[in-house]
C-alpha cells in the first residue's frame, strides 16, 4: 500500500484538477456553447491537458535535475519550503490570479492558458512530496534486483543512478496525473454540455481554494518532516 500511495496521490491530484471548473472543463464547455458544437468541446481537451502536463513536467524536470546535483535532504527541505510559502500565499491572497482575457483562442493559446492556470495553482508543486520519495523507492527496488551486480559501483554513482533511474517513473508520474485529469475533465465537460447544463454551477462550484491552500501547506510540512 505504501508503494501505491504516491501513484494514488498522483491520480487523485489529476482528478481534482479535472474537476476544478477554473482549470479546464468550463472553458471547454464555453467554447462548445460559442460554436454550438460538441466537437468544439472535445477539441479543447488536448490543448488543455497538454498545457497542464507541461506545467507539471516543468516541476518534475526541475526537481529531477536538482536531484543529480544537490543532496536529497536539501531538496526535500527546499521543496517543502516552496510548498509552504506557496500555500501561505494562496491562503493570504486568495483572489490573486494570472490575468487572461480573451476567449477567441486557438489550440496554442488554449495550451498556454492551461499552462498558466496550472502553474498559478501550483499543480506541479504538489508532486514534490512524491518526487522526493521516488528516488528512495526506485533505489530500494534496484537494490533488491541488482544488489550483487552493482554493489561495487553504488557508492560512486548512487546519485547519478537514481537520477537516471527515476526518469522512467517520473514520466509515468506526469502521464498518470495527466490521464486522470484528462479523463475527469472530458467526462465532466461533455456531461455538462450535453445533459446537465451550467445552472448547477451556481450551487456546485465550491470554493476549494482554501482547502487547496491548506493542502499545499500540509504537503510542504509532510515533505520536510518525513
Amino acid at each position, binding site marked *: 500500500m505504501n508503494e501505491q500511495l504516491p501513484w494514488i496521490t498522483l491520480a487523485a491530484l489529476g482528478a481534482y484538477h479535472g474537476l476544478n471548473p*477554473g482549470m479546464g472543463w*468550463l472553458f471547454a464547455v464555453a467554447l462548445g456553447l460559442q460554436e454550438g458544437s460538441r466537437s468544439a468541446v472535445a477539441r479543447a481537451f488536448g490543448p488543455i491537458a497538454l498545457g497542464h502536463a507541461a506545467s507539471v513536467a516543468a516541476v518534475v524536470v526541475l526537481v529531477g535535475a536538482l536531484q543529480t546535483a544537490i543532496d536529497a535532504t536539501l531538496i526535500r527541505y527546499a521543496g517543502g519550503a516552496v510548498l509552504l510559502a506557496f500555500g501561505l500565499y494562496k491562503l493570504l491572497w486568495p*483572489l490573486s490570479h494570472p490575468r487572461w482575457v480573451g476567449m477567441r483562442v486557438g489550440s496554442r493559446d488554449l495550451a498556454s492558458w492551461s499552462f498558466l492556470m496550472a502553474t498559478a495553482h501550483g499543480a506541479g508543486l504538489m508532486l514534490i512530496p512524491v518526487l522526493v520519495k521516488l528516488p528512495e523507492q526506485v533505489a530500494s527496488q534496484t537494490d533488491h534486483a541488482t544488489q550483487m551486480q552493482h554493489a561495487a559501483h553504488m557508492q560512486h554513482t548512487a546519485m547519478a543512478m537514481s537520477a537516471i533511474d527515476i526518469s522512467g517513473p517520473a514520466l509515468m508520474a506526469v502521464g498518470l496525473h495527466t490521464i486522470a485529469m484528462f479523463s475527469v475533465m472530458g467526462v465532466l465537460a461533455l456531461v455538462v454540455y450535453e445533459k446537465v447544463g451550467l445552472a448547477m454551477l451556481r450551487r456546485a462550484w465550491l470554493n476549494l481554494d482554501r482547502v487547496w491552500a491548506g493542502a499545499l501547506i500540509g504537503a510542504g510540512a509532510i515533505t520536510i518532516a518525513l
Partner: protein
Amino acid sequence: MATWTPDPTFYPSATMAMGAQREKLAYVVVLHPNGNGERRPDALAVLDLDSESPTYGQAVSRLDFPYTGDELHHFGWNACSSALCPTMPHPHLERRYLLVPGLRSSRMYVVDTKPDPKQPRLIKTIEPDEVHAKSGYSRLHTVHCGPDAIYVNALGRPDGEGPGGILTLDHRTFDVKGRWEKDRGPQHLAYDFTWHLTQDVMITSEWGTPNMVEDGVNPELLLGGKYGHQLHVWDIRTRRHLQTLDLGPEQQMVLELRPAHDPNKSYGFAGVVTSLKDLSASIWLWYRDGQGIAVKKVIEIPAEPADPALLPPIIQGFGAVPPLLTDINLSLDDRYLYASSWATGEFQQYDVTDPFNPKKTGSVRLGGIVSRAAHPKRGDLNGGPQMVEISRDGKRIYVTNSLYSAWDAQFYPDGIRGWAVKLEAEPEGGMRLDPDFFVDFGEDRPHQIRLQGGDASSDFFCYTNGKTH
C-alpha cells in the same frame, strides 16, 4: 469576502438571470444641484421596492457623501455574472460594493451594501489625485464589472481636454490599476463602453471632453458637429483600437450602449441624442459584418413642433422640441428596448426580436418641456424620463428624470423636481404606468438606479442562453 459557493446573484446566462427573485431594493444616486449658493453633498438613496413592505415605494435611507460638488451620475457593482467567465473565474467574490464616481470631482466612492443592504456605508474614498496620477484621466463617468477587474471610464484629462478613455480598478482592493488602452488609434472622445466578452470585442461611444460639456451644451460646438458621433471597436486582448464607426457629424452625441446579452449575438444598440438635420433622435444598431462591425440606423424619433414662446432660450429658435434621447435599456431576453426622450417627455418600448426592424410597442408620456404630461399621483410633471432600468425578469421598468446639472438648467430653466416612476411590461408587448408608484425627491435630482442583485444593464455573460438549461 470570499464565500464557499458562488454569489447567488451570478448567473451563467442572461436567461437564467431572468429567473432571479424579484428586487426588493434599489439604489439611486441623488444630486443636490447646489443652487442658491447652498452647498450640500450628493447622496446615495435606497428605495424600498418590496411590494409587501409598509414602506414600499419610499426612500428608506440615504447615505450622504462627505464632499460637495461631486455630480454623481452613473455607478456600478464590484463584481457580477462576468465573474463566472471561464478564463479566470472568481465566482466566490461577492457582489457587494457599489463604486460611485463623481463626474465633476473625479472622486470614486466605495460603498458597502452588506451586512444591511438598506444601510449602505462608505468604506473607501479614492481621491481624484490618485486617479489622475495612476491613469492620467479625469471626470469619471461609468463603472462596469469586468471578468478581470472593475472598469471605469472617464471623459478626459485633468485639464478638461481629451482624450477620454478607460481605467481599471483591482476588484479586491479597489486600487487604481491604470489606463486600459495600449493603442487608442484615432479615439479622442468617450462616454460609455461595453463588451462582447466571448468575442474579445469592446465598443465605446462619444459625448465630449469635459470642457465641451461641463458648462452646458455649447451651441457653437453643437451646430459645428463637434460633439461625439463615432463608435469605436477595440480588441480586448491586445487593448488596441480596431475600427471607427462614424455615424456622420450631423448625428450629435452617441451616448448609451446596450449590447445583446446573449454572447452568441454580435449586435447592440446605441442611442444618438439629436440630429442636426431635423432635430430627430435615433437609435443605431451595430452588428457583425464579415470580419468587422458595421452600424445602421434602425429607429428614428422625430422632433415635435411647438410654439417658441413655450420653449427655453436654447431651443427657441428651432420652433420645435427635439426628443433628446438620453438613455436606452435592453431587457435580458434581448427582446424589448426602452428609450427615454427627455425633452419631449416620451418613454417608448420597442420589440427588437428582429434587431434590424424594431417595432414600437409602447409609449407613455411623462413631463416634457412643452407637454408637462401628468402622473396620476402627482399631476403635472417637469423634467422628463431619463435614466431607465429594467428588472431582471423584464416585468418592471424604473425611470428617473434628471440629466446633468448644467444641462438640466438649459432645457428646464424652471428647475427640475426629482421623481422616480415605475412601469409594468405586458408579456407580449406594451407597457403601462403604475399609477400608485411615485417617488418625489423634491429639489434633489435622482439619476441612475441600480436594482439590488443586478438588473438588465449591470451584468455581462459569457455563456449563451440556449444549452444552459
